[in-house]
């Protein structure tokens, strides 16, 4: 059995992204490097033969997904699973958590100017964020971070895929600590 066949079989049978090291568990002769090499092989094979699907890198792993160009055809079928889209508040809250993680609820609420408890709860329920620990600050509030499922949902291979601050039209404010935000005299020196 060729390595690429084993890797292809494992990817085909999985309904979620698999890391190279997870795929390597299929056989004792495999390791991460061999799996990644096989994935490169499969990718060029699929491209050359015009397959309807590709090996996509997302959620820190690999998954076989259909090509985006097929969406108009597949969307006609009720049996094809659709990813539920997130609301505006959910996206804004996720954006804050993704860039500032780990971050507490108070800080999120300060940035958005509205309460965040309900949205965070929903994001937790959908497995997009999780508790990362507790801040050392007053009341030891819970801190949140994004999950692997967050990366899967947006098709990111890793957090590196998020738009970088220098690509953004507005300069990213330097990260303020929770203490600073809760403090009585915020530091105004950084006003542009």
């Amino acid at each position, binding site marked *: 059995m060729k390595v690429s066949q084993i890797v292809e079989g494992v990817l085909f049978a999985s309904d979620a992204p698999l890391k190279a090291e997870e795929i390597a568990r299929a056989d004792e002769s495999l390791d991460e490097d061999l799996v990644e090499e096989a994935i490169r092989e499969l990718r060029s094979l699929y491209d050359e033969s015009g397959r309807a699907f590709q090996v996509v890198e997302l959620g820190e792993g690999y998954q076989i997904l259909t090509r985006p160009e097929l969406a108009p055809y597949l969307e006609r079928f009720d049996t094809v699973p659709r990813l539920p889209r997130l609301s505006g508040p959910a996206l804004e809250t996720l954006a804050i958590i*993704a860039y500032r993680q780990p971050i507490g609820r108070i800080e999120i609420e300060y940035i958005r100017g509205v309460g965040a408890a309900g949205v965070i709860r929903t994001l937790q329920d959908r497995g997009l964020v999780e508790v990362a620990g507790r801040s050392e600050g007053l009341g030891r509030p819970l801190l949140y971070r994004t999950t692997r499922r967050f990366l899967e949902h947006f098709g990111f291979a890793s957090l590196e895929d998020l738009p970088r601050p220098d690509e*953004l039209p507005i300069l990213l404010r330097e990260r303020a600590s929770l203490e600073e935000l809760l403090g009585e005299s915020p530091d105004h020196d950084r006003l542009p």
Partner: protein
Amino acid sequence: MSPGFPPSGRSGDRRRAGLGHPADDGRPGAFEKASGFLLVDLDRFQGPLDLLLHLIRQQDIDIFDIPIATITDQFLAAVGQIQAGDLDGAGEFLEMAATLIRIKAQMLLPRHDEEEEEDPRAELVRRLLEYEQIREISSRLSRAEAERARRFPKGYLEFRPRGFVEDTPLESTWEEVLDAAGGMDLTHPRSRPHRITTGQVALEEKIQLILDAMEASARVEFSKLLAPWKSKMHGVITLLAGLELSRQRALTLRQARLFSELWLLRGDLEEWARSRAELVNGGLAAALREPQLDAWDSVGEDPVAAGPDPHPETPESDEEGGA
């Protein structure tokens, strides 16, 4: 919308985006005059910062020099439409209104030292810029989400269900509860000396463990054998047991490369059982224990050469080791 349009509250006929109109006809000055009649659908906005940013951007106001009096009036006009029964979320708008009024008051106070005192608007501007950026990021996330949604997996992708423990709104995380439980210092009600010596990890036990695992599967990962135990001694003895069984040709050890997963491949167990039975009369325990030192030495010299197979990369070698 004309300034004279009567406020119709939050009924179905309401005119949305009323605040945008003064900017549309390019007369920001008219905005203030009209503010008493302006309608704003607060549901359109995701909070006070969103509304403020909308007011500023719609009127092409320089965010670094906000006419705070004008903006405060416009903001209050919008907030004033929140009806008594619609207080859900109103608190955040009212809090921002209070902040604006405070800033407006501070702006009126004479400033003694321009060098030392910061502009009262500074923190608000910083928040607005930051919020504007978060909005930009979230619209990018939305595009990424839409792009991702155009690709489909082979089957139905279910949400991973969350466990019961996580569903309960706890003040403490489960890890913290476990940590606390583990750290408790339990004092005994009465002193009754009861000495427990931890039993030695028996090699025979580990050999049996491996044999049981081999019966279930022709290939076993070494790490799986260790999973139930934390102590290093279990690891050492399990490795010795594996080496011993490999020496007796009951199995073959295989490792793709240094520090990668160690695999145990089943050999000819029937053949092995026959030779083992012959040993029973001669003292099985001795036969099992004796080679420990040898095995230990070989580990010390070269952990990679654990298996007898000189070609670890060859996948189809299940048979050669045990035969």
